[in-house]
């Protein structure tokens, strides 16, 4: 995969133009999108215009920074002025954004070139990207499998080179799940760090906006550009030394129900890091087994509120599975929603405690490899389990807790599907998490 870091260096030295990079991405979209359906809207003309403008500015010595002239994409629930924001639903098929989302504006200010809007699980309410008003998304490693979701098109865009970076959202794992399923990097920032204004919500208290990219460094560049200006860091973090890196392996619930290849791949990566000096201790989240119920009640309550009017006025414009789940969500009682809010606070506290004395937590990003399209259950340790449960199992704790978390590829299954590793950092210390992820990335590559 071509990285932003390499492309930016080539742009800065004049070895390549933004127009050329953008044309390459548009060519890949043209060649592969009919099969993979990763993009809902391609803004080729606007992108080429932006790219030519970037080339003029760079040639004139007015390079803004590492994203200047870099072709990126946006998950199609993020507003881009003058472009439809469908949220993967026919409910919004006629909605054209009249202004940029905050993150879009920040990336525009950084000089990024927007090649289009990526497909997703309708309204981000699912983890497979199978239910979209614009057709299902397919995994580039095996077109009969899901790319994960809900930011499925975003994962595909990076894995295939349709764009060099992309912006997704993550409410229960929707950045990290497709990153793991497609073999790319996905960074879910700490909750509230990056504005979600101008982004179609699923659950405002659990939604996170963040990047997917080909490398940890690329994800950092996008993340940094999306921060408020006062929070940005000019220097790119360097890999932390594995010697002295303290990792908390989240044993128990989060390692209990894994695909055999995923368990083997993640454990081998942890062993490798340990052999090279990392200190690994086992830690637990005592109430991990309550997380799915807590998460469900919060997401259902929030989604039911957002969709209440359109479920009545235009139910036929939703895909049937998403409509039914939203209808089910309307039955959650206030008492149970409040109970789930208390559970959320407890989980946040337990993640803080698990991080006591370590630099990061380590666990799989996704319990299974990319599931076959239409699969209801998958075999895991202990017997078959529902795909929906498995997809969220390793990622949703950190939506409840709000801690920053990053998924990165760590090998393949016996049939060549990507496996995702996840690192979780302290609140307020995302740069340190990225440094640990850079160390893990280097150890995996060596």
């Amino acid at each position: 995969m071509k990285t932003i870091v390499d492309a930016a260096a080539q742009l800065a030295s004049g070895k390549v133009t933004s127009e050329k990079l953008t044309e390459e991405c548009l060519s890949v979209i043209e060649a592969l999108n009919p099969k993979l359906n990763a993009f809902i809207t391609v803004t080729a003309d606007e992108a080429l215009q932006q790219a030519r403008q970037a080339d003029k500015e760079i040639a004139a010595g007015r390079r803004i920074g590492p994203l200047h002239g870099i072709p990126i994409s946006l998950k199609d629930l993020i507003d881009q002025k003058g472009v439809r924001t469908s949220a993967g639903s026919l409910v919004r098929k006629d909605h054209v954004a009249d202004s940029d989302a905050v993150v879009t504006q920040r990336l525009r200010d950084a000089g990024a070139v927007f090649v289009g809007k990526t497909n997703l699980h309708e309204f981000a309410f699912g983890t497979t990207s199978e239910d979209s008003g614009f057709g299902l998304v397919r995994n580039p490693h095996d077109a009969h499998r899901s790319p994960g979701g809900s930011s499925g098109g975003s994962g595909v865009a990076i894995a295939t080179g349709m764009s060099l970076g992309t912006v997704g959202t993550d409410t229960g794992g929707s950045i990290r799940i497709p990153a793991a399923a497609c073999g790319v990097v996905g960074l879910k920032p700490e909750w509230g760090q990056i504005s979600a204004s101008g982004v179609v919500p699923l659950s405002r208290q659990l939604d996170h906006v963040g990047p997917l990219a080909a490398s940890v460094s690329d994800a950092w560049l996008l993340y940094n550009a999306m921060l408020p200006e006062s929070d940005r860091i000019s220097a790119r973090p360097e890999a932390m030394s594995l010697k002295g890196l303290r990792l908390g392996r989240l044993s128990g619930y989060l390692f209990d129900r894994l695909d055999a290849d995923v368990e083997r791949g993640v454990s081998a990566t942890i062993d490798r890091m340990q052999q090279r000096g990392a200190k690994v201790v086992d830690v637990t989240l005592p109430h991990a087994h309550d997380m799915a119920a807590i998460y469900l009640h919060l997401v259902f309550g929030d989604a039911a509120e957002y969709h209440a009017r359109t479920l009545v006025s235009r139910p036929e414009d939703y895909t049937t599975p998403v409509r039914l789940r939203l209808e089910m969500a309307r039955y959650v009682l206030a008492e149970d929603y409040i109970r789930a809010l208390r559970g959320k606070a407890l989980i946040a506290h337990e993640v803080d405690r698990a991080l006591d004395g370590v630099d990061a937590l380590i666990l799989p990003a996704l319990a299974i490899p990319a599931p076959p399209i239409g699969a209801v259950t998958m075999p895991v340790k202990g017997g078959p389990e529902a795909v929906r449960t498995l997809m969220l199992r390793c990622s949703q704790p950190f939506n409840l807790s709000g801690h920053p978390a990053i998924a990165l590829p760590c090998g393949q299954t016996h049939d060549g599907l990507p496996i995702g590793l996840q690192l979780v950092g302290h609140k307020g210390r995302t740069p340190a998490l990225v440094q640990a992820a850079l160390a893990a990335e280097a150890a995996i590559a060596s």
Partner: protein
Amino acid sequence: MMIADWLAAAKADAEARGLPELIPMLDGLAQATERLRAADWNDDADKETPRDPSEPVDDAARGTR
């Protein structure tokens, strides 16, 4: 509202609204709600006074560490 009563009412409502596909799904939601209500961190009005779980002094008592 007790879960059994809620579930019966929800199923009747789904049926009345012409959404019979919801009925088996509501059973799943009811199971999740049962789990939530049975969690050991729920308060009881006649038991210990609620405390903030982030308070260090509370952690030892709760056995979360």
